[in-house]
């Protein structure tokens, strides 16, 4: 599988451009997802963006502190069966919001989204409970994804195998290491074989062995005429996994095209092909010479992914603390 990615430039695919994986051309078929001039706005409570300093303006900071964020502003694209698409852009550019809109989890303010079959966000996360055992969480998560109880029973062993957490399956998820938790979530999320699989960062979890298995699982989904959409800040991950890249900036689509072209453009515009310039290591990976020994590139990518996984875990921890606080307050 590793070779799939590294030798794509050797194949001649004039119609699709150089960024397309060699076997992708044959699989890209009819449209699976159509996003038509989509705008997504949402309300936030408890704060406002204010310009002036008049008494009236200052009062509004405390009373009626409701504001509207225009996260996505007029994005259109068409995705096809068998395509893997990466979405890149700075923090706050509307990537995750767009994904949630496609998943049907956020309402579209203007425009429309059509999908062929189910679009599922790799985000069963929210349905799982830390106080319950892995076993109960598999059932709960599977049902949350829309599986029937019979389907959950049928896929239970597969999920446990993929997660590879052994006897920890009987312990509450509270007791899991962040890598174990992430593996279980990944295994549950992908058990439903969605027609359109969407991944928001943090695919990068755990050890090398798990990385391989998760990669296989994703390939499997894309193989079954599915469509994969990946949101990531890791350019190497996007380069490895996607045929096509959408670049979002402040809610607008800046570029849409073959991976190599868009990433080049992105790096030319931003100076470096990374969204977080302080991360030296990742910059190195992204700039890595194509001629480098494959093993070394792999190692660096691995390091970058592990780093992303740690960040994800920290974010989750913060979110959890927040919701616990909210619960106490309520």
């Amino acid at each position, binding site marked *: 599988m590793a070779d799939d990615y590294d030798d794509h430039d050797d194949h001649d695919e004039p119609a699709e451009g150089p960024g397309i994986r060699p076997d992708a051309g044959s699989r890209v078929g009819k449209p699976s997802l*159509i996003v038509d001039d989509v705008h997504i706005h949402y309300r936030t409570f408890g704060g406002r963006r204010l310009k002036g300093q008049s008494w009236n303006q200052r009062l509004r900071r405390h009373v009626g502190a409701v504001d509207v964020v225009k996260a996505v502003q007029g994005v259109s694209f068409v995705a096809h069966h068998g395509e893997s698409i990466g979405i890149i852009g700075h923090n706050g550019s509307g990537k995750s919001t767009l994904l949630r809109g496609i998943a049907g989890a956020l*309402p*579209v303010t203007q425009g429309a989204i*059509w999908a062929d079959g189910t679009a599922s966000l790799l985000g*069963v996360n929210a349905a799982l409970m830390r106080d319950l055992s892995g076993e109960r969480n598999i059932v709960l998560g599977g*049902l949350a994804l829309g599986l029937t109880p019979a389907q959950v029973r049928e896929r239970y062993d597969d999920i446990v195998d993929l997660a590879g957490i052994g006897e920890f399956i009987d312990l509450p998820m509270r007791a899991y290491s962040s890598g174990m938790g992430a593996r279980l979530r990944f295994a549950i999320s992908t058990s439903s074989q969605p027609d359109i699989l969407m991944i928001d960062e943090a695919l990068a979890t755990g050890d090398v062995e798990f990385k391989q298995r998760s990669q296989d699982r994703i390939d499997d989904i894309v193989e079954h005429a599915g469509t994969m959409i990946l949101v990531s800040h890791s350019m190497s991950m996007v380069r490895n996994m996607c045929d096509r890249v959408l670049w979002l900036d402040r809610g607008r689509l800046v570029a849409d095209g073959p991976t190599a072209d868009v990433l080049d453009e992105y790096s030319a515009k931003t100076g470096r092909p990374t969204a977080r310039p302080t991360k030296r290591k990742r910059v190195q990976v992204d700039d890595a010479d194509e001629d480098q020994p494959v093993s070394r590139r792999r190692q660096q990518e691995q390091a970058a992914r592990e780093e992303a996984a740690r960040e994800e875990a920290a974010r989750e921890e913060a979110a959890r603390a927040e919701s616990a606080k909210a619960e106490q307050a309520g």
Partner: protein
Amino acid sequence: MTDLAALAAEHGLSRVGVRPPLREYLRQTWQRRHFMISLAAARAYARNQSGGYLGQLWAVITPSLWACVYLLVFGVVLKTNRGIDNYTGFLVIGVFLFHFSTASISNGSKAISLNQDLIGSLQFPRAMLPLATVTAELFTLMPALLVLIVVVISSGEPLRPVWLLLPLAVGLQWVFGMGIAMVLARLVSQFRDFGRLVPFVLRALMYTSGVFFSLNHYVKDGAAADILKHQPIAIYLELGRSCLLTEVPVSLSSWLWGIGWAFGLLAVGFVFFWRAEETYARG
């Protein structure tokens, strides 16, 4: 129609994120019932799971302790037992069933606002959330009902066939709770401030539903008495008591009121909730 809309129509793609018709919504909700029940059971279970060494035993210990506290305060200290023969049974039934409804209402009203992360990442009929929240309260009530039956028997009530109606009475109260939770969940998600009013309404209900005194003894006749005795919570407390206590007669009209409140509110709540289905995310 835009070009892309035409393309979608040509390939038979279906629209994402729009509210389905009512019948379809009802069908989807029914289809996902296993998720609703599993979510409710998980929440009721998780509530006691971090309770230390005693774990799930707390499901029984907690209501027992509540029963002791209320009996001590109202039975021994305040003596609000005027006009009631079996005050122990009367009070414990009242407190447990009343708590079931208040927990359903207060947690149900927050079912959307507290589950934003779940709403933001998975697609399912949002009515699942208020329904599951109230069902979790039902699962929490079940061990308490065992405690309740033990208390009532030990207070000297004879076992009668009418006891078999208790699950039906509790079932109606559950249906009523789901209806009201759907109404409140939508209101609170659209006007958060509304959620602040819920505790005051619940407190008012506590003193007007005959939880620890007999409504019959304090309010006699007139419009006020009629309203107090026919408001849903008072009705469900009376139904529960009429099943277990000899001194409270079983009345057909109360049962009809109970059924009316339950299914009336369920229907109204479901339609009212459905009409704002697409707005719940990040409300």
